[in-house]
């Protein structure tokens, strides 16, 4: 009888334990304010839209999970139209007037390049994609790239493609680089020029153009006239679309189209249809990565935007906030000095990579993920360990 009773009590406990909800209590107290600006209109509207989506997904998730340090999270997002001047004003306002507790990442690099020193001056941790290598070489201690967008690491991507995916005999012999004239484009251009030199590829066309690009035809025409086999539009979204359209319009069929980042935007396929396929680009996060946490990102994107998987910039936005969340929770405080020091003190497992350790510049070890648009999806082709498909090389000709 006693044993039965004991078992009963034990069983009751087990039952109670197993049916207890996995969620913690609702977040309570003063909301934590996270501030900054994005350009939802202007030249970078497309990418910014997805970044904001990533932010919203993260906010939703964290407020359901019990908040950051137990408090709910609120984002204050100003509209900077992609304009650096405005962004600086708004970030400064967020810090000095709204007195935000944390700062979120601005976009793109042309804005980050001004926000990084700003946050350094105000002593606020700034986790963003950064503004390429030069920006990380200024001795700023509060800036981190998690994940970063490092045009300078384009060489990793190109070396990967050439050395691992294409037999040397089939390498493209000539290259045409069309580079947007800003820190993003220039960083990638320098990296690719180095690769071309080291791998013996002749650079027949090396044109830099000012944004916004009004007309792609003369640029593409030059590449076509030189019959460049490696065609590199180092562009943002609108100009990338214009260049691709022009290439099709004049029936220019390079063996490899290596883009800066345009194919990573979902609207790519919408604008180009079939012509958007087989475009190669590289990034620092992809929805197909097999790291834990990515399934949540994909599911959130599906729910919020009805996309089959999370677009690159959605994942970026989410990962920046997730990184911020993990270091704030880990440091257990909103003191930026402590957060900063904590971030350098150990390695982390993020959805974009495991065992990430930040160096004194605020960067993880160099890496890149190369994708090729296949049937409308950005399939990973390199590194081979994460690859989801094989490269289609040479690029199939444009269809009518």
């Amino acid at each position, binding site marked *: 009888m006693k044993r039965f009773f004991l078992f009963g009590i034990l069983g009751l406990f087990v039952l109670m334990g197993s049916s207890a909800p996995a969620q913690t209590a609702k977040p309570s107290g003063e909301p934590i304010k996270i501030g900054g600006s994005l350009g939802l209109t202007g030249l970078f509207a497309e990418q910014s839209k997805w970044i904001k989506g990533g932010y919203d997904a993260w906010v939703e998730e964290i407020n359901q999970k019990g908040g950051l340090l137990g408090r709910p999270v609120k984002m204050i997002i100003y509209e900077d*139209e992609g304009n*650096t*001047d*405005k962004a*600086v004003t708004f970030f*400064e*306002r967020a810090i*000095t*007037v709204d007195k935000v507790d944390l700062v979120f990442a601005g976009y793109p690099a*042309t804005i980050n*390049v*001004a926000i990084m*020193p*700003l946050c*350094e*001056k*105000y*002593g606020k941790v700034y986790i963003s994609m950064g503004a390429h290598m*030069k*920006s990380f070489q*200024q*001795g700023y201690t509060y800036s981190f790239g998690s994940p970063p967008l490092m045009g300078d690491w384009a060489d990793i991507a190109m070396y990967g493609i050439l050395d691992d995916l294409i037999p040397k005999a089939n390498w493209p012999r000539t290259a045409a680089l069309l580079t947007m*004239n*800003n*820190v993003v*484009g*220039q*960083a990638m251009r320098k990296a690719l020029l180095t690769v071309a030199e080291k791998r013996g590829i002749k650079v027949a066309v090396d044109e*830099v153009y*000012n944004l916004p690009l009004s007309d792609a035809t003369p640029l593409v025409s030059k590449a076509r006239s030189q019959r460049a086999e490696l065609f590199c539009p180092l562009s943002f979204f609108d100009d990338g679309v214009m260049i691709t359209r022009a290439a099709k319009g004049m029936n220019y069929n390079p063996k490899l189209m290596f883009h800066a980042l345009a194919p990573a935007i979902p609207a790519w396929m919408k604008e180009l249809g079939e012509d958007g396929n087989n475009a190669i680009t590289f990034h620092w996060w992809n929805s197909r990565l097999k790291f834990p946490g990515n399934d949540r990102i994909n599911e959130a994107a599906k729910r919020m935007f009805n996309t089959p998987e999370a677009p690159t910039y959605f994942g970026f936005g989410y990962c920046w906030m997730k990184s911020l969340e993990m270091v704030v929770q880990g440091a257990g405080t909103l003191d930026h000095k402590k957060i900063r020091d904590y971030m350098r003190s150990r390695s982390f497992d993020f959805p974009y990579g495991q065992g990430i350790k930040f160096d004194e510049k605020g960067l993880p070890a160099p890496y890149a993920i190369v994708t090729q648009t296949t049937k409308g999806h950005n399939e990973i082709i390199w590194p081979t360990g994460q690859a989801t498909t094989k490269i289609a090389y040479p690029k199939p000709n444009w269809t009518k």
Partner: protein
Amino acid sequence: MENENQGKPKSSKAAFLILLSAILLLVAFPFFRPPLFFLSLLISIFLFISLTESWNLLGGYTGYISLGHVVFFSIGAYTTAVCMNCFGHSPFLTAILGGAVAGGVAAIVGFPVLRLKGAYFSISSLLLAVIAQLIFLNWEFVGGSVGLWYKLMPVGIEANRVIFYEVMLGLALIITFAVRYVEKSKFGAGLITIREDEEVAKTIGINTAMLKLKAFILGSFFAGVVGGVYGYYLSFIHPDITFNVNTSLLILLMAFFGGCTTWMGPLLGAVVLSLANQLIVTFIGAEISRVLYGLILILVIIFMPNGMIEYLKAGKRVRKVQQGWKHA
């Protein structure tokens, strides 16, 4: 700052005392620990006072409207940035050099360009600004389209803001007083006759070419010095930031609004419109603010072509005359 704008009688002791106390108040302001935001706002007001006053040396007094003042501002900024990156000197020291380089460039381009009249001069100045921006965007030595960084000052943000506040205030005061000095000097009188009628000025023996050039160089020098310091304040400069066409618009607007004929005009214009801009941008929106600016410019040109100060003065004169009639 507010006190300075109430039209003060010419050289009475009271006016001098008011002025002095206003200045002392401004200098002491940061030490009352106001929110950093106010310091940033005042710094930008001081910037526009400096730019508009220095622009007015040529634009207001001679009537040669330059749309390229930002070029010299940028040259100053880039000079101090390059000096800091190559030699490690503090921009507070090299700002003078920035002004000198700007003045030098002004001397070279001013010589041919100032021979043009009116609208042709203005269009040329605009072209210079465009060409300069394109050159800087593609010149790797000065950072091209990537930009240039300054090393951050090794002080906390409050000290940083206070230091820049005092320096920018000092520059605004020096430049404003310098412009006032020029206005009241023979140099200034010569400039004003150029605006009145350049042909007549030439016939009475005024070396108009030399005067115009001097005004242009001096104004550009000031802009260069200010640029040298302000670039350091921004910590990062880029052609899109320093050559911003918006800045040229604002300078023009502030000078016209306040009145280009006197040294008080740009001061009034800079203060009033900067504050208005802040309010509108904060509470309504950036585009509305610029639409309003455009409208103000149109209205000012049509109804108050000599600016606010003249308009108010003229109003005073009319009222005085009317009062005279009443008592007659």
